[in-house]
């Protein structure tokens, strides 16, 4: 913890964190788009109908 503290104290400004965070977000975002489109079409169709496929409704 002390090591981290010393390192952070020596940083002039903390913009580096914003840049790192932005990069993490962009990578996560691109990865999620890739993941979303790697699910098969028929599965997507099935999943999106899940609330409608219940057989328990009274009406």
């Amino acid at each position, binding site marked *: 913890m002390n090591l*981290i*503290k010393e390192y*952070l*104290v020596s*940083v002039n*400004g*903390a*913009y580096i*964190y*914003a840049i*790192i*965070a*932005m990069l*993490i*977000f962009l990578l*996560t*975002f691109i990865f*999620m*788009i890739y*993941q*979303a*489109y*790697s*699910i*098969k079409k028929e*599965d*997507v*169709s*099935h*999943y*999106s*109908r*899940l*609330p*409608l496929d*219940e*057989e*328990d*409704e*009274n*009406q």
Partner: protein
Amino acid sequence: MEQEKFYYDNRIVKYFAYATLFWAIIGMLVGLLVALQFIFPSLNFDLAYTTFSRIRPVHTNAVIFAFVGNGIFTGVYYSLQRLCKARMFNDRLSYIHFWGWQLIIVLAALTFIFGITTSKEYAELEWPVDILVALIWVIFGWNMFGTILKRRTRHIYVAIWFYIATFVTVAVLHIVNSIAIPVSLLKSYPVYAGVQDALVQWWYGHNAVAFFLTTPYLGLMYYYLPKAANRPVYSYRLSIIHFWALIFLYIWAGPHHLLYNALPDWAQTLGMVFSLMLIAPSWGGMVNGLLTLRGAWDKVREDPVLKFFVVAVTAYGMSTLEGPLMSIKAINAFTHFTDWTIAHVHVGALGWNGFLTFGMLYWLIPRMFNTQVFSKKLANVHFWLGTLGIIFYAIPLYWGAVVQTLMWKEFDGLGFLKYPNFLETVTQIIPMYGARAIGGTLYVTGALIGVWNLYKTIKAGQFSKETEATAPALVPVSSKRTDGESRHRWLERKPVQFMIASLIVILIGGAVEIIPMYLIKTNIPTISSVKPYTPLELEGRDIYVREGCYTCHSQMIRPFRSETERYGEYSKAGEFVYDHPFQWGSKRNGPDLAREGVKTGKIYKPDSWHFTHMIDPRSVSPGSIMPTYPWLAENNLDVSYTGKKIRVMQSLGVPYPDGYDKQATADLENQARQIAGGLQASGYATDADKEIIALIAYLQRLGTDISK
């Protein structure tokens, strides 16, 4: 495959639905009273318990945690069972959750009207109730996860992702923001001070909006909108992208509540940039909701449920565009501390949360009671009154905000403030407060009609305590990814891993913002002349907190000429290092008080003025809308905890000398005698042991550290 028979528990859904309706009316009526107090200060009734500054938190908490909170649980308990094809994990946990939550609401209302508050907005509960909240929240999560784990469907539908993210994030927010050292059973000081306290509080405050008013309601939207429209969600892929983007980005946006405040610039910039980026995932949710109605728009004309949903999702879209725009520093300079913020949150609360809740209840209750809604016509009347109510609520406040902010910033030809008296800028917009109250009345009237309509529906129907269902048991499959299974698809069947992933995503933003604030010393430059409060000032500060002065008065002068001309030197981060909790406020119904005590300052008033003003503000400021605080001149100051308070402050790093707790009461009495003596010499009948003396001591200390 062998079918298993099981029963959904409708009774718990009914309980939460009733509580939702009950608290909706209570929360809104208190809101209406609060709105009327702006026009008729006599409606404070000269009573501590009904004073604006004490009941405003009752309104906000009742609407957020009682009305919307019970609305969330109503929707979750109904949809979760059906999406998991399983009864709730444990009925006992369900009912402990229900009664525990109602107990918290009652305790919240009682503690706030008795002035027991931490003063942190939407987190005003004192530590024993905070612990109860944490316990009940864990019980909710335990029950929810138990249900998900015993589900009979492989796939976890998108609505449940939002429920999981809500559970895990609210737990983190609540615990981190509530860490405090108790002084007594009903009083504590937060471990954070000043800038750090402000940052943690608004990291919490903003994400209470995000993870209590938004993510669970998006989950409800993903279930009830397709059900009501009988259409599958428009884009499942879009829901994946917008879910992860939303929870990742939201957690960063807190500092946009502190723009131009004494917060390091890097944190303000982060808050602004991430707030702007939030438009994309927010609108992803809105687009997904509205386009789910493709091909069903003809139904919207006929079905009140869909009408409520369409306005709800539209209001969500509007407020999630407006919020990021308000986070742009140049725009925020005009909107912050004004009624624009109040209008903004009400478009969200009345439109998005209110209408989605009512739409959901109009859909749910007839189904659970095996009947049709009592009157479609009344439901339509409710819808239109509500819609007009939102418009009549918001527009006058937007108008009033623009008028007031321009008056605050206007200079005459000689370079002096054109409206140097803050009160002028308040009396100018009183008609707008009147129009706002009309809008609120319309909305409450609609809600009352809605409750009546649902009551008649319930009376006409027959309640099914349970609903029978059948489904085959889930066949175990490998816990690892199967052939051709994408990572996200795997995650969608692994609830624990899903929760951990959500937790990691939300922790990144919080950690990047909060940890450097603690560790980088240059973030809060120290000011050697800033000293701890005297015992009397500390007690006065606690009265300031108790009475909720922060609900109307900021203590944060922004670095604008219009503010430094009006109030004095702008606020510095180093001035607040002993402020447990910070008192920067978020709305100016009255002037800023950060430099109230500076004798050579712009707004200095003598002790005698404060004394008279507290007892009867209109006697010294005709036209003022401030409530009266006569009890401060009558109540004796309780000094039984003064020593303990000093010790707790010492434990938080406030540099009182060793053993000062033993001397504190004597010092307190000395200072009180001086102030009371001055007042008595001027002909005011008071004693040194009255609460008002401590409050005056605190007010006269404000802002003086850097002008010594």
